[in-house]
């Protein structure tokens, strides 16, 4: 085993931050749909880790961060019904498609967006962590402290429910 890294070292702390802050932020965002709240959650989680740095071993830092963020989120009880606004990327500048087709596309995207917003929190975070952040099921399982099997089930249900809502277009 390599030398033990102490979370109390600021270099180690910074390393953990650059490695995990982004996915922690996305994770919080998929839960809350609120970017300002998500930034606060990330901030609080890292401060909490720093304050408890003696108790957090390096190998467990990641799951500590995700657990803390999750708990902090649950503590902020008054979260609204989540309506997510996902930024569209890769929007084509010019296209040969007909206006009619583009309209339909736009409609479909809106519908899908709403459907994702309507997913259960647990399903939504799994689905988006996998689809957008390209996290493997195993990684997600670690983050959420649940089994890989549970992640797969949530994934399956999420996709199934999305199709039921937007499928027949």
């Amino acid at each position, binding site marked *: 085993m390599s030398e033990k890294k102490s979370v109390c070292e600021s270099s180690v702390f910074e390393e953990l931050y650059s490695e995990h802050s982004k996915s922690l932020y996305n994770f919080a965002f998929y839960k809350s749909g609120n970017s300002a709240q998500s930034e606060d959650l990330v901030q609080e989680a890292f*401060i909490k880790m720093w304050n408890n740095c003696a108790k957090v071993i390096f190998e467990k830092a990641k799951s500590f961060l995700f657990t803390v963020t999750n708990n902090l989120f649950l503590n902020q009880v008054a979260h609204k019904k989540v309506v997510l606004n996902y930024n569209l990327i890769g929007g084509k500048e010019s296209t040969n498609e007909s206006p009619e087709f583009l309209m339909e596309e736009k409609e479909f995207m809106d519908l899908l967006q709403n459907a994702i917003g309507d997913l259960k929190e647990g399903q939504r975070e799994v689905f988006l962590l996998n*689809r957008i*952040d390209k996290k493997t099921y195993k990684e997600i399982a670690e983050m959420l402290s649940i089994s890989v099997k549970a992640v797969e089930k949530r994934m399956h249900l999420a996709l199934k429910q999305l199709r039921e809502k937007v499928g027949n277009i």
Partner: protein
Amino acid sequence: MKNEHTDDTFLSRWLNNDLTSEELVSFKKTTEYKEYQKIIDATQNFKAPNFNEKEVFEKIHQKTNDKKVKKLIPNWMFAAAASIALLLSTVYYLTGTNETYSTSFGEQLALVLPDGSEVLLNSKSSVTYKKSDWFNGNRTLELNGEGYFKVKKGSTFSVLSENGKVRVLGTQFNVKTNPSYFEVLCYEGKVQVENKEELAILTKGLSFRKIENKSSEKGTFINEKPNWLDGETSFNNAPLKYVLEELEKQYNIKINSSNIDLNILYTGAFTNINLNLALQTICAPLSIQFTVDSNKVVLSKK
């Protein structure tokens, strides 16, 4: 065929390319497949909002900065400091040094004892106590001179003096003890006074006094607190000798009183601020003349 993808992780396995080729082929034939594929394709176009990684880190950095400064002191330093402190306190505890506070001429001193009780010391007085005793709940101190005590409720509180012992549980009282003069006034609660010969219990408004070898006297008074706290020294039927002694203490003067009768009883109070005024208040009623020369005072009969 159609129901093949209904087990509860089928779609997950599909996304993960974990389906067997047969499963995949049959799945692709279904109508749902296209819809799923469309959703998955569309999802590629989503992303989470930008995360201000640097900004948030700055905030974290600010909030944790104070703590970081402290952390620069290595942990072993704390351990070392703690063990030294422990060692010192053990030594201290075992040997138990005496704490002494004293006042000089004309001074007063307010003290808070380890248990929170208060002592106000009049001039030319001192208290001594052992800190270690107090931490063991043994509230004992030695008094020389005059002190006013406001005692916190708790275990027995004892004031030792060469003239006797005063014991209380929680109260306010004044003790004045000189080699030949011993006076206790109880301002609140109950006080037990004990000397070689007798034992007396004082309640509010009662006083106990013993002068030299005369038998002790009990008296009453109505003040809420000792006069000396307000810058006056008062006496009730006290021999002039002690009044003059007290005056010497307050003003750091030497009084020559060889020509007058020191056993006259004096009742009254003198100020601790103005010597001339004080001398007048003592001497006028007793028909005594006084002359002041720097710090020497000579008294004579009129």
